[in-house]
């Protein structure tokens, strides 16, 4: 069992998130986190999905996802060199006595303070999961009032090449569609 990061490019249509989530539920998989946003390609959204499972099980999920008509492409980037980031907002208790200590910790983490109130501060931090967890644990001592985390987004580093979809000619209706969808790449099987 290990955590896997899947990147799915999906049609930006109503119900797509439901189709993806429903598939995970039905096949008995737990999504650890899922983050969705627009891409540079019109009509396509990008999902970063964090899932726990054996390599074979995650590969099964990847193929099942790929079968959804609205899912254009799915890639497991777990073994690739990638940058991954999460964003968190943490509302921490603060008073005149603790405020400067909190600011110091925030600086060390290159996080920032985005709101100040009489008895609290809102800290914004980006980074990988470990960094956010560490900051969270340090701030815990002061008293956390609220926390919001985005879930992971990820991107392969320069050399790996981007995850995009090439524009293609529409399929002629009469013939059965050909062209592979990566399914026959032996490495995928």
């Amino acid at each position, binding site marked *: 069992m290990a955590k896997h990061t899947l990147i799915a490019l999906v049609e930006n249509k109503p119900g797509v998130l439901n189709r993806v989530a429903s598939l995970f539920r039905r096949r008995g998989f737990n999504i650890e986190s899922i983050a969705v946003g627009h891409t540079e390609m019109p009509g396509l959204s990008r999902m970063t999905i964090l899932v726990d499972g054996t390599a074979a099980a995650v590969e099964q999920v990847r193929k099942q996802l790929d*079968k959804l*008509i609205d899912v254009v492409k799915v890639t497991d980037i777990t073994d690739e060199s990638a940058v991954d980031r999460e964003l968190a907002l943490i509302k921490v208790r603060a008073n005149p006595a603790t405020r400067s200590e909190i600011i110091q910790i925030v600086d060390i983490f290159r996080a920032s303070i985005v709101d100040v109130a009489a008895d609290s501060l809102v800290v914004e931090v980006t980074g990988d999961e470990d960094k956010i967890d560490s900051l969270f644990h340090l701030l815990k001592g002061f008293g956390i009032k609220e926390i919001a985390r985005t879930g992971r987004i990820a991107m392969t580093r320069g050399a790996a090449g981007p995850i995009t*979809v090439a524009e293609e000619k529409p*399929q002629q209706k009469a013939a059965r*569609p050909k062209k592979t969808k990566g399914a026959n790449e*032996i490495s*995928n099987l």
Partner: protein
Amino acid sequence: MKLTGAQILCESLIKEGVEVMFGFPGGAVLPFYDVLPDYPQLRHLLVRHEQGAAHAADGYARASGRVGVCVATSGPGGTNLVTGIAGAYLDSSPVVAITGQVARPFIGKDAFQEVDITGITLPITKHNYLVMRAEDMAAVVNEAFHIASTGRPGPILIDIPRDVFIEEAEFRYPDKVNLRGYKPTIQGHPAQVKKAAKLINEAKRPLIIAGRGVIISGACPQLKELAEKGQIPVVTTLLGIGSFPQSHVLSLGMLGMHGMAHANMAVNAADLIVAIGMRFDDRATAKVSGFAPHAQIIHIDIDPAEIGKNVRADVPIVGDVKNVLEALNEQVSPQNRVDWISQIEEWQREHPSTAIRETESLLPQYVVRQIHEITRGNAIVVTGVGQNQMWAAHYFQYERPNTLISCGGLGPMGFELPAALGAKVACPEETVWCIAGDGGFQMTIQELATVVQEDLALKIAIINNRFLGMVRQWQQLFYRRRYVATPLAGPDFVKVAEAYGIAAVKVTDRLQVIPAIERAMEHQGPFLIDFVVEPEENVYPMVPPGAALAEILEQPREEVSAR
């Protein structure tokens, strides 16, 4: 030219070559029904329950290889379709289900007869649509038929709000589909095909397992060529029956929980399995860890997600079965595997799985065999679920694709009659025999009215054992013979048939079997025979649930000789 959504739907269905729909009206689909008389090319058959519409569309699709269409209204109409859609989904049958929905302003308000049918059918459709604008209708229908019938086929649901049927839009039927997320792999990877050919050529005890994918792909001739060239024996799954002629010397029949003993023994002894267009369902493999313990596995399927899902594959090939087999056949060298084949023949002699024991009583196996004899195998057989299904699979000899129609994946009792009706509509020239259990038949018995109203010359054989037979068999073998909730005090099926206007006879004696079947065949219209058979007859061979394929339970010898 501006048309209403309902008119666009009809025009689009005609463009897709639809001739028949099975449906049931209601408020939300009324605007659609209202325009139907303007499109006489579209024949609408009124069923008596929407489950019947979905099974009929499925039976039509299986018998003809074309897309079957069913129609229902919103709410209860849609939910009644669900069983039929699930059956089509599990057996990869191309069905397009059209449902009405409440008008757009009411969606999400829990309006009268509002049900989220796209949500409900999400996990049992290949894809589904909610059409929110009349101008999207043509493109949706175009995509729906394309997706339903290509790649691994499957059901599609199109949900249409009442006011979208009425809204006007410009009608232009697209001649192309553009789905960047849907591009089935058709050609097998050449390197994989080469590896597979090498394994086949080197194997001592190879065995083909053929599934419904062979039939869907139209690859029966290619399968035959592979088997004959390489002298490779062929077993099939339940749904693969008909992909290879059962009279062929290399045919071993069906494998699995109720497979032929020699077929299961061959799987157990094989050193190479060539699995073609099948998905290693647990009814076929029995205990997976005990499946084909000595074999390497070549798995050919169009659906990449089937590869490695249940059983490891040593050489996977993703592609359309026909294409892959054509490529494979070029590289398979002619062989003569006399030792292997005669070993299997010996097993078959020692374990005659389809022998019928000598007895005075009326046996269901004998009934099915006589239907085969009298039709000379020239019939489409549509089964229910349970013992009748297995006897229909065992005692009729299938030579052609799509001659056995059975809902194997879902196993829904109630499939038999509406699916047989759909098959008869698809193939009016063929003799269609519906082989039903007395339990399952009562789940959709009301479709007898559809049979009469549409004048369909169906032949119906009820294997009437006064039990939910297959469940009773499990109770006998695994639950100390406690027959809880399985005895049936059925109706008089002859009187029921007559009430619907269908000619019928009851058969209680062995000697009446042949005359009754002959009479059914001679009769012009639909005909029903109530075969009152031995109540506690069991289906053998049987691999008990949880056991491996090699652990075959055969008809106890004392039972064979005692009666």
